[in-house]
């Protein structure tokens, strides 16, 4: 861009277009003529805050002008582009404290995301340790080893308020303190990279984008609890992450940042990788430890907690990838900095994998306390195809659905629990008006009952029975009694299953039953038809549906209302798509 002094970027999104952005574009073109091609006018996509439109952005100054009118163009060109002064009256204005902002990074809209765990992802070459070091890598470890005692480290992590990001939400500093205080001839620090929720990939992204940040944090944790051995438990389905980890470990060893006498401190630390077979239950820490020991990946009762008796019966701290990714910034910037971000009892940020019926599917990292509405509608860009929002599932198969009524709930561990879901590891699946909540619950339950380790009765048999009832309902073979049974079983499994996975397995069912009882009742009363139907009022008899039906279950003469044979309909939806008159009624 050095040939141009500036780019003038004009939003040509629908709403800006509606408010004259075309005319503004023309005005700029006219205005800059004769400036020797120093400036270039561009149309761009929507900037996302359409209420302020039309919007004009000046690159590379990162200045936004809002509510621009064609008559403002001359002033912008003369004042800003030529003289380099900003046109104050058109600057974006933060409604709250009425401070005009110029650089887009500072605007409230963009501040919705704040990246601590993902700070280096996408900005460094994960296979190059020098790039990591350039972005302050290994400084935290150096500081810890040369200036701090293990007690200091535990204290700073404890004071920061960092809680486990794998879902449990246990205070990381406290976990480290317990392991530090537990006696043992050998101690272990483990990274849990057995990410297994359907639709969740936060940990994988961190490991693929910034592996050193996790290794460094493990060494810091090792120093804090008194472990000289770190073990990475990662599922074999993550080959790229494993490859990058291996490279990172080798580089760190070559640089003396892992191995013997790190930073001349006398502290030795090595890291080994153990591959898991990807069983969901192995994300549970006791099951994970058993799997590492070569045993069947099954949870055992806690207490004893791994901090007292874990891997090989020794004090062990198991922490999640994202938890580790927060450690180095806490060490470098201090516990106060970290605890100033986020909500009352949930400090810092959380990474979510935003997926489902949302426009901007992606990884987002937001401060705790951000509302679901902000994530879904502002960062996520709202629901696809302009459909209506119905619910969002957090906590994966262990969580529950959150409806419109709770969208303004600030996200933290406690508030999500209070509305029947949970933080979980960070999967966030958005559902729109077309999603059938009973089917959604069935999907999750199918996953958990399949992934159950089979050890305890409630999880092994109970989740299967719940799944069977859901199948019965959706096949329109159930009754109202089944709804009570579902509830009874769900509550019993929550109360009696051996591990956290079993205890949370009924959540998707219980929470959808709580918020969408009518959908369950429709199945139980068999009001729900499985087939599509035709609204005879609207049908003009064009035969479009008849021609696309793969099972030939639609009959009717031309220009007469058609009829679907409900017993033969396979609910494929082809007729619905084909009908141009909205005459097909969904099941």
């Amino acid at each position, binding site marked *: 861009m050095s040939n141009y002094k500036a780019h003038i970027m004009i939003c040509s999104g629908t709403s800006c277009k509606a408010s004259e952005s075309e005319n503004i574009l023309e005005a700029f073109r006219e205005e800059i003529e004769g400036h020797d091609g120093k400036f270039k006018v561009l149309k761009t996509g929507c900037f996302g805050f359409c209420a302020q439109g039309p919007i004009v952005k000046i690159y590379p100054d990162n200045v936004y002008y809002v509510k621009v009118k064609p008559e403002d163009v001359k002033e912008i060109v003369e004042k800003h582009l030529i003289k380099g002064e900003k046109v104050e009256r058109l600057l974006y204005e933060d409604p709250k404290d009425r401070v005009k902002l110029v650089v887009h990074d500072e605007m409230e809209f963009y501040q919705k995301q704040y990246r601590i765990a993902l700070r280096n992802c996408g900005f460094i070459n994960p296979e190059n340790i020098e790039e990591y070091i350039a972005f302050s890598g290994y400084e935290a470890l150096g500081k810890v080893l040369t200036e701090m005692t293990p007690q200091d480290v535990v204290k700073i992590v404890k004071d920061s308020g960092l809680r486990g990001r794998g879902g449990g939400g246990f205070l990381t500093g406290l976990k480290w303190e317990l392991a530090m205080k537990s006696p043992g001839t050998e101690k272990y620090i483990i990274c849990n990279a057995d990410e297994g929720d359907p639709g969740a990939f936060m940990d994988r992204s961190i490991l693929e984008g910034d592996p050193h940040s996790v290794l460094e944090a493990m060494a810091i944790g090792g120093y804090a609890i008194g472990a000289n051995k770190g073990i990475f438990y990662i599922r074999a389905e993550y080959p790229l992450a494993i490859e990058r980890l291996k490279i990172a470990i080798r580089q760190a060893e070559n640089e003396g940042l892992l191995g013997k006498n790190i930073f001349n401190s006398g502290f030795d630390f090595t890291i080994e990788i153990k591959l898991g077979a990807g*069983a969901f239950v192995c994300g549970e820490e006791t099951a994970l430890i058993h799997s590492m020991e070569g045993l069947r990946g099954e949870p*055992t009762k806690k207490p004893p907690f791994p901090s007292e008796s874990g891997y090989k019966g020794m004090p062990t701290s198991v922490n999640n990838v994202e938890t580790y990714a927060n450690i180095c910034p806490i060490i470098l910037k201090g516990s106060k900095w970290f605890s100033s971000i986020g909500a009352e009892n949930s400090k810092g940020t959380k990474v979510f994998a935003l997926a489902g019926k949302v426009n901007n599917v992606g990884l987002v990292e937001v401060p705790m306390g951000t509302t679901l509405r902000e994530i879904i509608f502002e960062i996520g860009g709202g629901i696809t195809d302009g459909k209506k929002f119905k619910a969002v599932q957090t906590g994966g198969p262990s969580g529950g659905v959150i409806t419109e009524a709770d969208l303004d709930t600030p996200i933290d561990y406690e508030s999500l629990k209070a509305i029947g879901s949970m933080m979980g590891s960070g999967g966030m699946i958005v559902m729109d008006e077309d999603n059938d909540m009973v089917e959604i619950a069935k999907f999750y339950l199918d996953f958990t009952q399949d992934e159950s*380790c089979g*050890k305890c009765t409630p999880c092994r*048999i109970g989740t299967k*029975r719940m799944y069977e009832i859901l199948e019965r309902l959706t096949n329109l073979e159930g009754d109202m009694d089944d709804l009570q049974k579902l509830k009874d079983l769900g509550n*019993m499994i929550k*109360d009696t299953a*051996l591990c956290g996975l079993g205890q949370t397995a009924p959540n998707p069912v219980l929470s959808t039953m709580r918020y969408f009882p009518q959908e369950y009742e429709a199945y139980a009363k068999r009001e729900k038809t499985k087939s599509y139907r035709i609204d005879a009022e609207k049908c003009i008899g064009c035969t479009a549906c008849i021609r696309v039906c793969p099972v030939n279950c639609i009959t009717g003469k031309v220009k007469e209302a058609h009829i679907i044979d409900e017993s033969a309909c396979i609910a494929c939806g082809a007729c619905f798509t084909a009908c141009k008159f909205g005459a097909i009624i969904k099941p």
Partner: protein
Amino acid sequence: MSIIKLSINGMEVEVQKGTTILEAAKKVGVHIPTLCHLNLEGFGIVNQVASCRACVVEVEGRNTLVPSCSEKVTEGMVVKTDSARSITGRRMAVELLLSNHPKECLTCAKNLECELQALSQDLGIREIKWEGEKMDYPLDKSSFSLVKDPNKCIMCRRCETMCNDVQTVGVLSAINRGFDTFVGPAFNLDMDNTACTFCGQCVAVCPTGALTETNDVGRVWRALHSSEKHVIVQVAPAIRVAIGEMFGMEAGSVTTGQLAASLRRLGFDGIFDTDFAADLTIMEEASELVHRIKHGGRLPMLTSCCPAWVKFFEHQFPDMLDIPSSCKSPQIMMGTVMKTYYAEKKGIDPRDIVVVSIMPCLAKKAEAARPELTKDYNNNVDLVLTTREYGAMLKEAGILFNQLPESDFDSLLGESTGAAVIFGTTGGVIEAAVRTAYEWITGEELENVEFHQLRGLEGIREATVNIGDLKLNIGIAHGLGNARKMLEDIRDGKSQYHAIEIMACPGGCIGGGGQPYHHGDMDIIRKRQEAIYKEDRSKVRRKSHENTAVLKLYEDYLGEPYGHKSHELLHTYYIPREKI
């Protein structure tokens, strides 16, 4: 140890730190049902997986119900075992188990012995609300010893604890996931194709009918009904102190006389005591030991009476097959003598003789079928029943065992000594061998035949017995895990023993896998052991080499102990086997 105070159902309880809620509740007369839990007290065997959830109780301040079998008490804990929430939780756990359980109680081998059945009755379950799909796996009847029915497996993992932790055989573990999970060998191999020793300890602790012995009762009935066959029977030492339990008698009742009488009533053509063969075994084994000591042979020598132990070392220590004694087990020696000497004496074609054994053991069934232990294409022992099967046969025949007048075994090959009886308990075989070896080596008479240093129930015991100038170092192990430790010491050159006795089952044959179910009550095993020693004390002759019938057998037929003919008939060899 510090004292913990807690409240259970409103009652104050004081217990030692480390006590579980279950044990604490017992103290105040509160029974909490259990299913997967198993604690073989005094044997150091505990299965505490907390998987069945039939014992869950409410603890104040806890989000979920907790398993009382494994949750340790804490100061000030408030426990409610009788709240609606606790009862519902426990009841639903059992209902769920029943919903995936074949309801064939009437024809199940464990009918009236089944702990799930008992629990269902205790909880008054009359209807199962959660009917649905049931597991449907084929039965494993591949082996001669046991039947595995995965559909009755409730994942209590007791068998796994016995197989892996106690016996260190490692054949059984949970396989598959979710609803399809059950306990079985890797890849659900047939049991016959695994390193299973058929010790039967899995069967001994299985709460349901998922693991039972192969039932040979019908075959024995058919043999008895056949007019062409000469059907004779032998009973092992450990049967007489256990079978009474099946007929309402006190544990530890000695029922040798009733046993002989019952066999006679069933119509066997000859009734014999395996004790005779035990004495014969001592003649051979003590000779072998003396031979090895005198000629600088391989030491220590290990006993070979226990077929589960034999199969264990064939699989696990195939490099050390020269260590065990080459003696056949008493069961097989008896069968061999029957089909040779007895047949000759009686003038019966050995092919017309059916030898039935009644054994406390499942491995004896597999042993009888080992190809190298057959002679001239004819089994030495044809049919093996466990104590339990024999008890069932008596019940079927309407024989009121406990009311029978005492009777004796047949006179030919009928005599036995106290040394033979103690084969039934851990330490007994080696004590019997020492009684004989002592007199043979020193040439002096042994005054006090009881070697108390060899007795007890600790898993591994050792003692030094002075035999003249020789200090004989003796090791004893029961339970295959303990045996493994001894063998590893031998392999590492750390062992100083001359002779070692090994029995696969905890307690020896009195705790065998074919004995009446103890249901976790280890006092029963202790009482059986006391009864064994009582029987020994009641015998006039207590040293095997004083058994006149045995001496006559050598004189008439075998010649010298450890001589040519006995080598041919009474000794065997071992086969290296795969580890899986």
